[in-house]
């Protein structure tokens, strides 16, 4: 594997800077070569050269420029050594590469650093292209945009490293051979393609926030990666409201990380979380980013979800939360992006705002449709509302159903402990959305 910078656990500032530089070099080379494999190889060689040269001569004044130009020359060398026919890169492109490096080696540096923002965006759009399978988009983005190693990504998604490496090889070949470009899509395609990019980032975040495959509820490293990607995307596309909304949403969820788990790993319901343990800096940042987004007057699902999270963050207690406003926001969300999952969350909000019977009325059609029969949070919400309505017997059945359908072991065990095994003494507290980011 090529220079795989950065340890996942406890990423230091230096590692992060190193990975960022690596990502920038790969982005610039990929865009010019049209080939991720060639870009990765050249970047690896440039970083290897840096470790020798910088140790001997000191770090150059513009390390990024040095690395990019060195990688560029390595790519040209690789092309020359391999001969024109054996190359995987479009011969036309490399023809211009060779001419460029020969005639104007000094122009290259300014040229390349000037287009860096576009290069990085182009790489993100290529990695998240809808012609690639969703899990492949996630793996490519973590590898080439966030700069994680194949081993780290394989560990995070609990797949064998060889399997993941194979997927990446195939994906790189597909990008090259099928003509997926490392460019920002044309305006008429931008909205659709951006949606795919945001979805990939949010998938990474949810993988960290409520792992469906791991045994621990929060794998924070993936949350860090997703927020880093979200910040990068927001920085590159500051005028896109939903991109800002996504970043705000992730920051606001992340602000509760420390309060979501007890010392022994048990999940703590939103109602019982120690709100003083919420990260006020993240709340302030998330709220500010959301305000920026709302000013752009281009509403969407991420902004609505972020607004809901912001209302939770602003509330002094579970009871003092602005539930009527949250119920309204869920209604708006259901209009933009109708789904039974949204209805479940809306039912809880309505239950808090207008009483449990009103909430149960919202939930009734979802229960009747059977669409979410295997969705644990539905039954948890049902149990919560029944309990609140004073119907403990039926509530207990709903909790039982919830434990049967939740696939997150930590949340399931907590539900069992609270509601099913002993008779509950403290009704009216739902485990927060069964562990998924709402």
């Amino acid at each position, binding site marked *: 594997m090529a220079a795989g910078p950065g340890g996942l656990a406890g990423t230091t500032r230096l590692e992060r800077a190193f990975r960022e530089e690596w990502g920038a070099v790969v982005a610039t080379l990929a865009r010019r070569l049209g080939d991720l494999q060639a870009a990765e190889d050249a970047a690896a060689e440039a970083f290897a050269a840096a470790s020798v040269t910088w140790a001997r001569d000191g770090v150059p004044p513009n390390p990024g420029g040095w690395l990019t130009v060195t990688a560029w020359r390595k790519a040209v060398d690789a092309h020359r050594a391999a001969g024109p026919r054996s190359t995987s890169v479009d011969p036309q492109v490399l023809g211009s590469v060779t001419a460029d490096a020969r005639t104007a080696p000094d122009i290259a540096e300014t040229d390349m650093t000037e287009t860096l923002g576009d290069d990085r965006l182009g790489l993100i759009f290529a990695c998240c*292209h809808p*012609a690639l399978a969703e899990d492949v988009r996630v793996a490519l983005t973590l590898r080439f945009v966030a700069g994680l190693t194949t081993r780290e990504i394989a560990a995070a998604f609990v797949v064998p490293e060889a399997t993941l490496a194979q997927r990446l090889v195939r994906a790189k070949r597909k990008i090259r*051979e099928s003509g*997926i*470009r490392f460019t920002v899509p044309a305006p008429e395609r931008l909205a659709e393609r951006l949606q795919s990019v945001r979805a990939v980032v949010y998938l990474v975040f949810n993988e960290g926030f409520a792992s469906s495959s791991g045994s621990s509820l929060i794998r924070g490293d993936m949350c860090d990666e997703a927020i880093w990607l979200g910040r990068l995307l927001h920085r590159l596309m500051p005028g896109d409201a939903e991109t800002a909304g996504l970043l705000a949403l992730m920051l606001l969820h992340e602000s509760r990380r420390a309060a979501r788990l007890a010392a022994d790993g048990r999940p703590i319901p939103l109602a019982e979380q120690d709100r003083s343990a919420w990260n006020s800096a993240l709340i302030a940042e998330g709220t500010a980013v959301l305000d920026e987004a709302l000013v752009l007057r281009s509403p969407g699902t991420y902004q609505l979800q972020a607004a809901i999270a912001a209302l939770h963050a602003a509330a002094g207690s579970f009871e003092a939360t602005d539930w009527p406003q949250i119920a309204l926001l869920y209604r708006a969300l259901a209009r933009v992006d109708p789904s039974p999952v949204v209805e479940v969350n809306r039912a809880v909000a309505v239950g808090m705002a207008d009483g449990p019977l009103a909430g149960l009325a919202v939930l009734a059609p979802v229960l009747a449709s059977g669409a979410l029969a295997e969705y644990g949070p539905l039954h948890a919400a049902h149990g919560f509302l029944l309990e609140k309505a004073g119907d403990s017997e039926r509530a207990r059945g709903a909790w039982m159903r919830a434990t049967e359908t939740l696939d997150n072991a930590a949340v399931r065990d907590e539900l069992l402990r609270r509601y099913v095994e002993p008779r509950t003494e403290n009704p009216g507290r739902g485990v927060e959305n069964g562990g998924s980011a709402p």
Partner: protein
Amino acid sequence: MKYALLIYSQLNADEYGAVLDATRQADDDDGPWVQYTRAARDAGVLVAAEQLTHDDTATSLRHQGGDRMITDGPFMETKEHLLGFYLFDVDDLDTALDWAKRMPTHPGQTIEVRAALAGLPWQRALAD
């Protein structure tokens, strides 16, 4: 880059025959496929296009241990049949996908978009 837009359909031979009869009888000079083909030609991106007979009339030649066996039928019996293709010369996959999206649709139709390789030795013979 050249892209083949391969049109697969779930029509069986009888259904396909009926569709073809109807198409011939209508003799429509401004139907959706005519419009589509005209638009592609006018955009200067259309290299070739063909519509095929149903694959139940296919003949396959199989190589087995040095023999060439002629068999009656397609390479593989499948529910979806390759019934035609457009060959486009466009800049990238996104543009090829745009043309695939614009194509008239039938229920059960799938368009497979495949890029063509370039610069292979045999292709020089085409230019001779």
